[in-house]
């Protein structure tokens, strides 16, 4: 037979394993076992509400509690009179009180209480989760031995609380992972990420900014509260404000009372600045670059509430969320590209075959027409007949022009890459167009440092030429085309950007989606492959193109290409 004392310690821990799946039952059991083990009259387990900075009595056991209402709230403080448990929650240290009548922290709840023992429940990173408190009608009822027993029980309780927390997070993460993998509507998904992040981190708001390469800025893509109406409009430059800082440095930022931080700019706020208790932002990382920033905020429960800070654990959690999102975004982008490439490839193959067949027929028709012409030449022909012959000839000519367009479209993605000076290429082209179209004013702005890219000179000339050609087509005398070549750097990479802005009618909002698609045109001539070819060429270079003008104010095309260092000894 075991001695009574040993059995008391061994038995409870054995019993705990059976109920460990249910945190509430476990905590109740721990409290009851604790009372028995240290021979206490009654006890409580209180948990910290970090949001309000209060200690809330959650579980009670022992004599005298039945008629009383639990859920008592005490401010976590070292100021006297707020209860011994509150003091322990504040200091994070166990507290032995042999005589409550002499204790400044004691808060009287029961008239018969004489002595108290309280131990903190400490979570990861040293954060106080709650307090296990026992009391006795006897004075000086607790000593070192009782403290040890209670501390052991408290650490089991802490473990259970942490475990429950982890399980919650894991479930939410797995759930989100599934949603990310199955997502079809990217915007709904982004919103879901902010929801999950806010929920898991007990945050009052969460916003997601993603990098828009064409304008080199972070753009708000999803938010929950005040910022919701600014989705698609609120932007940060790289390095601007805390959000921009996170993107630029590819590092997390965690702050208490953000207003004091020199990086803080407060451009777009989910909450009023004085309401913000804590702020945390992490980069959304792709394989090679920062794709965006995910940020969370906590609101101050009241002006008196202590700051509710984000912990290391929580930072890690937000990182996990952000990296899940990063992987999903890259997959999405990859799929989109793959699809486009496959689409282009199959369209290309079909186009090539059809064009070949049509080309042969046209060749034969030209021959027959020529023969007809030569046979008719000795005869006197009426003007009408001559005009008919002429129009057949002209139509055949136009068919051959279309065939050329098709060929350019198919060949757009077959590149011969060489280092080349983009500044020179654009400059030459702008000069040529300025000479050819003297009724239009061409302006060119180049960086002092020449911009180099690895590219196919002929294809890039075609692409920029098409854009200028396109602009000229819609302009009238006195209009302007402004071309700017510059380099920007973000997430450690250099990007060449070419902006082509004109003062023409601009592109109607409803057409913006379509202009880069094959066979779309508002021009009378050609088959509308121009901008599709340009896009094909730019994307084959690993770049992007977008139209960002406003209807009525002119078109603005922005091209981005990966830049390279100018070669040694080059004109740089």
């Amino acid at each position: 037979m075991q001695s009574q004392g040993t059995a008391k310690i061994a038995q409870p821990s054995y019993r705990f394993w059976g109920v460990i799946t249910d945190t509430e039952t476990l905590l109740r059991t721990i409290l009851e076992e604790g009372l028995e083990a240290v021979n206490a009259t009654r006890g409580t387990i209180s948990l910290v509400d970090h949001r309000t900075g209060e200690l809330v009595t959650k579980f009670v056991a022992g004599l005298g509690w039945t008629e009383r209402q639990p859920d008592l709230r005490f401010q976590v403080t070292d100021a006297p009179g707020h209860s011994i448990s509150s003091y322990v929650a504040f200091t994070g240290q166990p507290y032995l009180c042999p005589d409550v009548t002499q204790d400044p922290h004691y808060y009287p709840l029961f008239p018969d209480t004489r002595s108290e023992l309280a131990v903190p429940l400490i979570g990861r990173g040293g954060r106080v989760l709650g307090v296990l408190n026992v009391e006795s009608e006897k004075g000086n009822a607790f000593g070192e031995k009782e403290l040890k027993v209670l501390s052991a029980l408290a650490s089991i309780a802490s473990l259970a609380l942490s475990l429950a927390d982890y399980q919650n997070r894991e479930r939410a993460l797995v759930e989100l992972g599934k949603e990310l993998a199955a997502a079809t509507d990217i915007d709904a998904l982004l919103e879901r990420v902010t929801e999950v992040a806010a929920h898991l981190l007990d945050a009052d708001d969460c916003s997601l900014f993603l990098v828009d390469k064409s304008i080199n800025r972070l753009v708000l893509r999803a938010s929950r509260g005040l910022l919701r109406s600014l989705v698609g409009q609120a932007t940060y430059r790289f390095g601007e404000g805390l959000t921009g800082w996170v993107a630029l440095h590819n590092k997390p930022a965690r702050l208490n009372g953000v207003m004091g931080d020199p990086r803080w700019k407060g451009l777009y706020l989910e909450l009023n600045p004085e309401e913000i208790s804590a702020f945390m932002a992490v980069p959304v990382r792709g394989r090679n670059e920062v794709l965006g920033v995910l940020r969370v905020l906590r609101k101050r429960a009241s002006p008196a509430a202590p700051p509710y800070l984000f912990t290391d654990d929580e930072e890690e959690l937000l990182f996990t969320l952000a990296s899940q999102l990063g992987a999903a975004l890259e997959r999405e982008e990859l799929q989109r590209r793959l699809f486009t490439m496959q689409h282009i490839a199959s369209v290309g193959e079909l186009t090539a075959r059809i064009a070949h067949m049509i080309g042969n027929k046209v060749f034969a028709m030209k021959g027959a027409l020529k023969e007809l012409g030569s046979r008719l030449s000795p005869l006197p022909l009426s003007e009408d007949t001559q005009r008919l012959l002429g129009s057949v000839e002209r139509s055949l000519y136009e068919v051959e022009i279309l065939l050329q367009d098709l060929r350019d479209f198919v060949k757009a993605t077959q590149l011969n890459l060489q280092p080349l000076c983009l500044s020179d290429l654009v400059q030459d082209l702008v000069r040529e167009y300025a000479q050819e179209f003297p009724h239009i004013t061409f302006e060119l702005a180049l960086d002092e440092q020449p911009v180099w890219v690895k590219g196919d000179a002929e294809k890039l000339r075609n692409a920029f030429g098409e854009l200028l050609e396109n602009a000229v087509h819609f302009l009238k005398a006195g209009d302007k085309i402004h071309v700017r070549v510059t380099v920007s750097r973000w997430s450690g990479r250099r990007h060449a950007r070419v902006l082509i802005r004109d003062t023409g009618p601009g592109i109607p909002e409803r057409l913006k989606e379509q202009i880069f698609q094959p066979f779309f045109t508002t021009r009378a001539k050609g088959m509308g492959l121009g901008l599709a070819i340009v896009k094909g060429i730019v994307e084959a270079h690993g770049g992007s193109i977008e139209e960002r003008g406003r209807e009525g104010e002119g078109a603005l095309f922005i091209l981005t290409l990966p830049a390279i260092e100018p070669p040694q000894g080059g004109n740089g």
Partner: protein
Amino acid sequence: MGRILVVDDEELAREAIKLRLERDGHQVDTASSEAEAIEKIRSADPPYDVVITDMVMESENSGLEVLKAALLRDVLTEVIILTAYGSVTNAVECLKRGAYDYLEKNIPGVDVYDLLALKVERAMEHRAESMALLKRLQAYQQPIASPSASEGHD
């Protein structure tokens, strides 16, 4: 003028080229496939002066096969390759293998039939020059070859 073989699987194209070249006074045969062309080249006597062949017929390399057959029959036969959309790479290969020239069928705004007639004229001249050179070479070799050989024995 010249004896010319026109090879194209497009009947209208064959006929148009034939008519155009006949106007310049050439004698023109036609073939509608790689196989027919090779057959006609082998049995031609005397060999054709110029062979004009489409690049892509039964296969991507039909033009190349016709070229080989023509040069096997007479190494001085001039071969002009016709290419429709997209077969320029193959045509360049033909040039490396001894074709005289190639011509794209669809050049907007260019009268390719006149251009072809012009190329045929040049090819005829080229062939005439080559034949003259060959004759001079033979004439040069013959009188010297046998006497020098007999002299060597003296």
